[in-house]
């Protein structure tokens, strides 16, 4: 079975899957980190933490945008990922996290306390939860790199 599915992989999917798996963790780590630094800022009002949050969200969005493109290619080039709910769940969760964090980046441009409390931190929680949930689905999604080991028909 594994061989049959492997033959169906297009070249694009084969090429992009490892790139995606390399990029995807970066925004997840950044968004979770931004939640941690938001908590640190709300506890201390020390501006360094706010700046950490801003850079983490910005870096998460930059690498997240590249990852989102790679995921789009994977989705278009590989029918298997589109079958069943998990692939879609992964895409919706990850793209959702990016949209929430884009808004969060704008909120974090406020000069001081109200950049984080309450709206910024709320968005950081939502964004981090969505990103981690997207990471959770990845273990079950037939992205090429993972797929040969546990393809689900």
């Amino acid at each position, binding site marked *: 079975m594994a061989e049959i599915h492997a033959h169906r992989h297009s070249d694009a999917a084969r090429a992009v899957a490892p790139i995606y798996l390399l990029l995807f963790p970066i925004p997840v780590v950044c968004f979770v980190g931004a939640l941690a630094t938001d908590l640190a800022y709300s506890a201390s009002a020390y501006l360094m933490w*706010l700046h950490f949050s801003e850079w983490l969200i910005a870096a998460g969005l930059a690498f997240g945008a590249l990852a989102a493109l790679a995921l789009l290619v994977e989705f278009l080039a590989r029918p298997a990922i589109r079958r069943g709910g998990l692939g879609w769940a992964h895409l919706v969760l990850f793209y959702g996290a990016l949209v929430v964090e884009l808004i969060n*980046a704008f909120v974090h441009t406020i*000069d001081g*306390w109200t950049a984080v409390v309450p709206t910024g931190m709320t968005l950081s929680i939502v964004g981090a939860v969505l990103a981690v949930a997207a990471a959770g689905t990845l273990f079950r999604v037939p992205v090429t790199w993972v797929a040969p080991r546990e393809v689900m028909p």
Partner: protein
Amino acid sequence: MKTSTTLALAACVALAACGSGDERNFDKSTEYGPNPKLPEPSRGLLPKMNVPKVVGWQGETPTVPQGFRIEALATGLANPRNVYPLPNGDLLVIESKKDAKEPVERPKRPVMAWVESKAHGGAGGGPSNRILLLRAAAGGKPAAQSVLIDHLNSPFGVVVVGDALYVADTDAILRFPFKAGDTQVGGAPVKVVDLPAGPINHHWTKSLTASPDGSKLYVGVGSNSNAMERGLDEETNRAAIWEVDPSTGAFKVFASGLRNPNGLTFYPGSNVLWAVVNERDELGPNLVPDYMTSVKPGAFYGWPFSYWGQHEDPRVRPQQPDRVKAAIPPDYGLSSHVAPLGLAFYTGSAFPAQFGGGAFVGEHGSWNRPELNGYKVVFIRFENGKPVGQPMDFVTGFVKDGKARGRPVGVAVDRAGALIVADDVGNTVWRVSSSAATP
């Protein structure tokens, strides 16, 4: 490139509070005077901005009221920011620009720096950061133009006391041997006192004046941030007016809580110091009004903890309720984001009587609200040493069809009673005289 560069960044992004009806229908006349209307702070997802494209004057001139005429004294300058008429009729023109870049401590900074550079349109190409001398001639037009002092460090304020010319560079007050009539300074400068400057140096224009008896200097030192978002440590002795002893360089903070004080001027015939102050951004298009105020010795005017007296700024932490309680409101609101940078009281007699003792304010103009505000010189009448009524537009036309032809900065009244205006985007010095009087 014909259309104005409108950065409607906030326009309607996702859940942004899209310019509510309240904001658009805000009656601007309620923002002037001693008790301006202060709406609730509201920023939206991004601060609303509108940066007009800079097109220059192309031979045209600003507009002045009936009974006045305006002419260019000097054109093709490099960022003329301030003007200082001398008693013999000569005029000092201070060309200045900020050279140093601010450190990028957050992703927002480069974006804001780019927006503000758009508003300046790149400025004139020639060398800046120097003081020009325009030699007086009959009829107002200068007979000659020469460089009095070169290679200064972003100078702004100047004042002549006795045989000394004091220049407020962004990082120090310098004293040059000079008196009216000289065409050259008489040697190297002596540093009077260091002023807070780099490495951040956000508000860099140091306005300067002297007490009527010449015994003290007063220098405006603007804040290093919009609303303390770089921390309190960066604001040491900033957002303040200093009183400096010119002989020893000893200084004390004369008044504080003034976010970016400029146009320091003593009211004629009094010992009352006045200033125009740029208030904070990103609390909405109609908040916080910039203002003109007499400066009470030792007073605290709120920045960063509160605005217009005791209205607390929600962004500033840790809060300091005791400081807020001590904050006093300023005298006269000029409306939000007009960016007043010049102030001159009318001491001449060439203009009609109502102008006597009133204030001209150079409003550099906004970039941080959807509807442009400022970009003009306004006049505010004074009675018994106090501002009365609404400001009257005096020099206008700096924006036409949404494009900036110039931006007024420093203003002054010359020996003949004409108003001199520095225009740092039009790279011109303008002179407004009464068309009734013979030149």
